[in-house]
């Protein structure tokens, strides 16, 4: 076991250097150091005596996470100020495969934070960013993106998947990357299959261990934490639960609808 391998297993201290308000419910927390990570991998952030949760990095040097105020963990995270400490271990998981070809990246809502490092690693990718409403946007200065809103408050009116469907009528892409609501990723995967384009999606499941032993994040016979969180078309074709089932914290297999309802029980109201 080399030094880096050893380090990623033990929780290490991070200090918050800067906090940026991205929108009414989203903040970026910049840390005091860089973390060596591949786009699509994740770290486990630990707030002692609260909980530990998986996060993508939205920046690498210095490392940062971009987080939506959602449940108990993020509520506590949002209380932290510049100079406060927290802990992390990782990186874990596999990450995206960066093809040096013509790529389109589709992000839904907070999914954009999960593909930020990917976008930076690609050469002139097409980026489509779908949100419910204008006020949910972030990183609009950082990336050149085609914006879609459900309520027509800005950009293309309608779903990001519809926007891509239109683009595919006159543009050719070699790979579709996706991160966002699973229903969106399922639609994108089906679209990719129809057009015979490679697809990579980053999945989300409730996670206990994060290191490939407990089975809490199972999707079909795959573990989101260790076999994923990024899955390719070849994986997705075999994953029966993709787009349909997820496990609750107690392990009960639930429809995605029930899963989201369960997860949103803990959601904090933002205005």
């Amino acid at each position: 076991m080399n030094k880096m391998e050893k380090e990623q297993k033990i929780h290490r201290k991070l200090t918050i250097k800067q906090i940026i308000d991205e929108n009414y419910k989203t903040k970026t927390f910049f840390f005091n150091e860089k973390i060596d990570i591949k786009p699509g991998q994740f770290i486990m952030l630990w707030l002692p005596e609260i909980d530990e949760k998986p996060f993508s990095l939205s920046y690498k040097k210095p490392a940062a996470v971009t987080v939506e105020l959602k449940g108990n963990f993020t509520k506590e995270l949002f209380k932290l100020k510049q100079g406060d400490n927290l802990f992390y271990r990782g990186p874990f998981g596999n990450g995206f495969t960066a093809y040096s070809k013509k790529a389109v990246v589709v992000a839904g809502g907070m999914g954009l934070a999960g593909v930020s490092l990917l976008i930076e690693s690609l050469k002139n990718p097409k980026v489509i960013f779908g949100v419910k409403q204008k006020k949910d946007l972030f990183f609009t200065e950082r990336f050149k993106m085609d914006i879609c809103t459900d309520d027509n408050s800005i950009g293309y009116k309608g779903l990001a998947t519809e926007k891509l469907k239109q683009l595919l009528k006159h543009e050719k892409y070699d790979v579709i990357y996706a991160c966002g609501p699973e229903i969106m990723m399922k639609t994108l995967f089906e679209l990719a299959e129809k057009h015979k384009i490679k697809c990579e999606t980053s999945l989300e499941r409730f996670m206990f261990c994060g290191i490939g032993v407990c089975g809490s994040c199972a999707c079909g016979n795959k573990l989101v934490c260790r076999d994923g969180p990024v899955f390719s078309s070849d994986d997705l074709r075999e994953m029966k639960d993709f787009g349909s089932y997820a496990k609750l914290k107690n392990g009960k297999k639930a429809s995605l609808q029930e899963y989201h309802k369960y997860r949103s029980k803990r959601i904090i109201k933002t205005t």
Partner: protein
Amino acid sequence: MLDLSTSIAGVKLKNPTILSSGILGTSPELIKRAFENNAGAATIKSIGPKPREGNNNPSVVDFGHGLLNAIGLPSPGYKNMDMEFDELSKIKEPVIWSIYGSKIEDFVNITKYIIRYKPRIIELNISCPNKEKGMLFSQDRNCAADVTKAVKNAANDIIIIPKLSPNVTNIAEIAYACEKAGADAINAINTVQAMVINIDAKKPVLHYKKGGISGPAIKPVAVRCVYDIYENVKIPIIGTGGITNGRDAIEMIQAGASAVGIGSAVYYHGIGVFGSIVNEIKEWMQENNYNSIKELIGIAHE
């Protein structure tokens, strides 16, 4: 011809490796994946009496010499798992159904419920943190015997295997009490009580603070427990604790195990670890002129 098969109370295993409870066994698909990767048998995550969410994270950490965990026995509860049970019952390879409870009645109720899915083997997780009379079932020989007897009575001819805790003074006498109460085999050991503190956070790393160690750190503890149990019982033993390669497995078998539980090794080497352990066992047997696993069981006692 090299014979890697072994048997546990009449159930034949193509090789002595068994996926341990709590590792991956949350779904029938993952159990099938263990078999596709050459596991001889596979144990499901312990089924509980009612829905239970478990602890907050961190719940599993690698502390450098093994894993420390306190996941807290999350379970949908046996009444919410018919879809999974149905799939499990279709698997042809030996599936071990692990169950837990806080009262003897819980074990009996779960057994009576799952019996319709015709499990061949039930493992009693009596080394979990749920307590009766202020201690684990497996920390008192009378408690361990009572729960074994009650489940055995409810289970007709299903093979019953209590899984014992090493956190006791004399594990062999508890194993003996289970044998007298009708246990068909013994699994030893569950995790060893422990704690790790992060000195920068100045807090225990696990959210639950205390947990149990598995992995390489506990292998000598497990070998000693299996050795002691072997001298005290006639029923077969599944030796579990810290086995990550073929030599470890052979060591456990020489101590008296008829088969070996594989858990944390999945973390260290991935799910392909069953295949590599089996290959390493095979190579060692060829080099040392053994033709069957059965010749090796307990030979360290001779």
